[in-house]
């Protein structure tokens, strides 16, 4: 089995939020040695959702498993100097401190590139360094609203609704990961390093199915419509005996098989349901006709029967059900990591390449790898390290 493809690479990660950490997680999953650089008191991500002060929260523990952790005060000259020394021998820097934060400290791309021409510098921010919103404050809700996802999500007669937590940041982290790989490919082709910039807003804005294009092509503004999907029906969520399932009928063949499944061949002949456009126009009537079949069955029965006829359907799962998902279990999808009360399950890599994923090292404790990184990478003696520690730099 060959080594993981990024095994030779070193990355420094300086994070204010989940985006850089998610990008770093992906780099680490494919072999890079990722060092998370935290201020001596720990970074805000560590405290997010923490069950009690002083403990690390699940967000930090999830995103930083498999990484090394060092402390470094980037607000002091000594700290900046040390970071520059680390960056001089790193392949990647990934940061989401916000526009100008690294530059202000003399750690922006131009200054680091002067030290290390091959450096790939990945900057993630909500809105970017330029543009009318550059100085705006962001959070999930704001990103969903400005990214166009909120308006199209929720019930027609109610207020627009935000999506799952952290998704805008994770998505930006995933795009940034691709950007980092493209920059590494270019470097491997004989080019130097470069800066990769990704924003959370543009990541969402580029991840619409047709929201902007509908408007640009025909002036159509997509409305939110509960669980129904734009111009496809029956594509919605239906109540079962023990919860809900999602059904997505997109083709005439699938609708024909659905009528067969439901034992309702006459629906196929009904002019109200004769085409996708007609079914969208009469979605309510169609839902009333098909809902009882689902309500009389469990999710599992209904999904299995639909799949038997190759009709796209899946259960709406709770988080405990996701953790116990039989297919993911059988695939060996989960990656185990040691936790305070035993082994914990983390999602496995989104794809496998090279060595199969082994158990991950747990997220680093504060400053856990100071000796390793400052000692082995930079060659600082124990005395020098102790002095930095006493001065509060690390």
């Amino acid at each position, binding site marked *: 089995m*060959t080594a993981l493809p990024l095994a030779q690479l070193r990355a420094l990660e300086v994070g204010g939020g989940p985006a850089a950490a998610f990008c770093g997680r992906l780099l680490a999953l494919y072999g890079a040695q990722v060092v998370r650089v935290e201020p001596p008191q720990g970074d805000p991500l560590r405290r997010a959702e923490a*069950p009690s002060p002083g403990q690390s929260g699940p*967000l930090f523990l999830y995103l930083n498993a498999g990484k090394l952790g060092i402390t470094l005060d980037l607000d002091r000259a000594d700290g900046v100097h040390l970071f520059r020394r680390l960056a001089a021998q790193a392949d990647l820097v990934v940061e989401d401190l916000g526009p100008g934060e690294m530059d202000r400290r003399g750690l922006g791309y131009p200054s680091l590139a002067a030290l290390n021409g091959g450096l790939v510098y990945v900057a993630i921010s909500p809105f970017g360094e330029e543009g009318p919103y550059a100085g705006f404050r962001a959070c999930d809700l704001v990103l969903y609203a400005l990214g166009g996802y*909120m308006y199209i999500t929720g019930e027609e007669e109610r207020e627009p609704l935000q999506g799952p937590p952290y998704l805008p940041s994770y998505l930006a982290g995933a795009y940034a990961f*691709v950007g980092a790989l493209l920059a590494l490919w270019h470097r491997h082709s004989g080019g130097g390093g470069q800066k990769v910039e990704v924003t959370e807003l543009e990541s969402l804005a580029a991840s619409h199915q047709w929201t*902007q*294009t509908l408007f640009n*092509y025909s002036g159509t*503004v997509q409305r939110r419509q509960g669980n129904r999907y734009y111009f496809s029906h029956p594509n919605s969520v239906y109540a079962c005996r023990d919860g809900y399932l999602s059904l997505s009928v997109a083709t005439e063949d699938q609708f024909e098989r659905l009528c067969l499944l439901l034992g309702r061949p006459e629906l196929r002949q009904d002019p109200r349901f004769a085409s996708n456009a007609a079914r969208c126009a009469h979605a309510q009537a169609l839902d009333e006709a098909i809902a009882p079949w689902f309500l009389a069955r469990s999710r599992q029965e209904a999904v299995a029967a639909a799949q038997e006829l190759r009709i796209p359907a899946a259960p709406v799962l709770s988080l405990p059900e*996701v953790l116990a998902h039989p297919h993911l279990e059988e695939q060996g999808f989960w990656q185990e990591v040691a936790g305070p009360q035993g082994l914990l399950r983390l999602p496995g890599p989104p794809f496998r390449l090279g060595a199969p994923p082994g158990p991950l090292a747990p997220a680093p404790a504060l400053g856990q790898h100071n000796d390793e990184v400052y000692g082995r990478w930079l060659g600082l003696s124990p005395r020098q390290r102790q002095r930095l520690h006493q001065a509060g730099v690390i």
Partner: protein
Amino acid sequence: MAEAKGPLRGVRVLDLTRVWSGPLCTRILADFGAEVIKVEHRASRGPAAVPASYARASGFYPQGEPGQRPWNRHGFFNEMNRNKLSLTLDLACPEGRGLFLRLVAISDAVVENFSPRVLPNLGLDYGRLRQAREDIVLVSLPAYGLEGPYRQRVAYGTNLETEAGLTALMGYADGRPQRLGAAITDPIAGVMGAAATVLALLRRRQTGQGAHVEVSQLGAAVNFVGQALLALQLLGTAPAPLGNRHPWRAPQGCYPCRGHDRWLALSVGDDRQWEGLCAALGRPDLARDARFATFLGRWQHQDELDAIIVGWTRGLDAHEAMQALQQAGVPAAAVLDGADLARDEHLHARRFYVSLRHPDAGTHSYPGQPIRLGRTPATFRSDAPALGEHNRYVLQGLLGLSEEELERLEAAGIIGQRPP
């Protein structure tokens, strides 16, 4: 088409993908310079004729008109397939498969998002592709993966979203599930597919070995709920969705503004932002009110705060309210609809949108590329190809077929520029 630039110049990708996840994956590769050849069945873009009523009602066609060649005028297809070439080929017939394998021999990667039985049924599994080119990279984006008990199940993103746990983390606070307005697991899988392709090509450079990489769309999506799964294991509970509220930010919500269906989203994350909100509302008294002095107090009195905020937003333009709050340091946003998003001044100032001219569909603006590389940026060389537009370039130029052979393939219906 203008000459390709970008880091992936010289990389050739055969694109068998359809709909959203796969085309988004290969769009990233094409934007960065790969020569992406879409290999399409003549029927893959739908029928030769589209009813005018459908074109009008769906909004997918320019000005609602299907036009002479509706298969080249669909906005969604054109949005996803810029910078790519189109070759029509019927892979169900031996001659089509033979030509495809000859292309594999001169390509670097093949990307597909069929259900797992399709390629093997066509006799085009990884082993067969490797016979054509030993170090080929095959990237598959199946719904559930190529192994495991559900591997044969069929699902779209609208299904995988509910199965991956994303739906469990959102919704109005009434316990009923609510899906996102667009199937987000498609772009998630597409972006991961682009990463898989580049990473497999990098590895091939290091080792000389190709690979079959599978991106399970379900598995990729579960990576987006990892923190919640860990919280469940550590704390023993999974928090119920709070609508637009937040477990440690308050007030937070979506408030009606002046006009029909216009909304403002705002979120107060700390005391400073709370003071900013009070200042923007012109209510210094609230900042002094002991009930709202701490996060916990504000969280407990959210209903009252919501009523106060609505009283302010109702008469305001959403964009003006956003500007006022942001200037006061409060995270706030107008809730943009599709028209707002397409016209957004920030995205335009950053040149996020690109304007492309299509001979059959006209000139339109499209979302650009969120990955910005300083030295080797994405380029936008052409709009989506017309069906079979590059048959001649690929078959004659790359494979050396004669004019007669091309005519015969066209007469046999194996290639063509119109749906059957």
